């Protein structure tokens, strides 16, 4: 049986973590959620992931610094920035990520971008 694509969600709001897990599992992905950058790095050390979705405002760390440090070690893993703030687009550190999604009431854009990036990596659900 084909393995499910594995997605790491870095999001400090527990309710959003639950929502993302539920919605993305329905799409056929295996989802791990963590609440901060340190836990995310730990998870990346322990397991392989096909894609990371990360918030920028994280407790104890700047999400952009986190993404840049991820890119140094796991350069081929695609990253989607998922933030409530459009304004971070002005920060070129966001370019370390592959996509930028502004949080909204719908997860359709996020799902679409996850699908496209995984297809590019030939890891579809």
């Amino acid at each position, binding site marked *: 049986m084909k393995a499910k694509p594995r997605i790491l969600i870095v999001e400090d709001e527990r309710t959003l973590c639950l929502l993302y897990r539920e919605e993305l599992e329905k799409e056929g992905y295996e989802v791990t959620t963590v609440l901060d950058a340190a836990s995310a790095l730990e998870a990346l050390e322990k397991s392989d992931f096909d894609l990371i979705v990360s918030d920028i405002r994280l407790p104890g760390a*700047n999400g*952009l*610094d986190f*993404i*840049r*440090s*991820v*890119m*140094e070690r796991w*350069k081929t893993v695609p990253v989607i920035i998922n933030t409530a703030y459009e304004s971070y*687009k*002005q*920060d*070129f*550190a*966001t*370019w*370390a990520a*592959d996509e*930028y999604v502004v949080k909204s009431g719908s997860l359709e854009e996020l799902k679409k971008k996850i699908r496209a990036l995984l297809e590019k990596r030939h890891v579809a659900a």
Partner: protein
Amino acid sequence: MSQLRKDPICGRWVIIAGERSKRPDDFRQPGGERAAETPGFCPFCPGNETKTPPEVFALRPGSSPADSPGWQVRVVPNKFPALSRGAPAPRTGEGLFVRMDGVGVHEVVIETPDHGREMSDLSLDQLKDVLRIYRERIRSIEREKQYRYIQVFKNKGREAGASLSHPHTQIVATPIVPKRVKEEIYGAERLLAKHGECAFCLVLRHETQRGERVILRNEHFCVLAPYASRFPFEMRVNPVRHSARYTDIAEDELGSLAETMKTVLTRLKNSLSDPPYNFLIHQAPNARMTLNGGRVVSVDRSYHWHIEIIPVLTKVAGFELGTGFYINPVSPEIAAQTLSFEAPPAS
């Protein structure tokens, strides 16, 4: 006593501090701007070309393939642009509230493959290439007539708005002429009508005769601490030859501009311990202008392109925001004295 000074072109007033004027040492930053660098992956470094959108231009001496290492200067569109390319729809709105689509161009010029260098560290040939690429990119974007203004600017250092220290410049084209540029244009047109000559040329002649605010002068360029400087150690790089557009700059002038920029940026770095700064190129719009009264002008006679270099050493606060007045704690005469000499590199 402090002085109120009026900018001769745009009419903006500033307050220049008097006897309590600060000295260069008051602005030196321990460790310099480099100390603020956060280590990590850099999307502008060679080998990471897939992290940027496809390049729109690159200087590749070894004819390496596009979007691969081997470049010396690389230009890419903004990956997450605030303005998108396209034809603007007409302005709409309700009553007084006007709006239009966020149409425009936003490109990033990556000045060198070397992450640890900065503009003042580039060789004269490299710097000339970068300055030539600004000209070529503006010329290319200007062909799309919907973009009425093209702004080239650089943010160096976190305090100046740069999040990555890898040297880069930005080019943004907008479908409207910005207010600050319009203020200069209106002032220049008014003074042309009064004196029959470009006001920037008049200022240059006057300042050269007086000398007290001249930082550097060579055959093609004159760098001034503007009479009504808004910020400490502000500099204005003026071409000696009258020209409204940066795109008119000739090859020998590009070489001279590279030398001028390298000199003044190095002096700034050494005198003030590598401060953050912004620089911006102001040139005539990519369109004819309609002035108050409905007169349409090309501004070729009245406007004079220039580069403003603004070290970020003070914060703009309530008074400046509320009044449009700036309070500058360093007189332009002291700034010119400080920046007229080669200072040794800060240890």
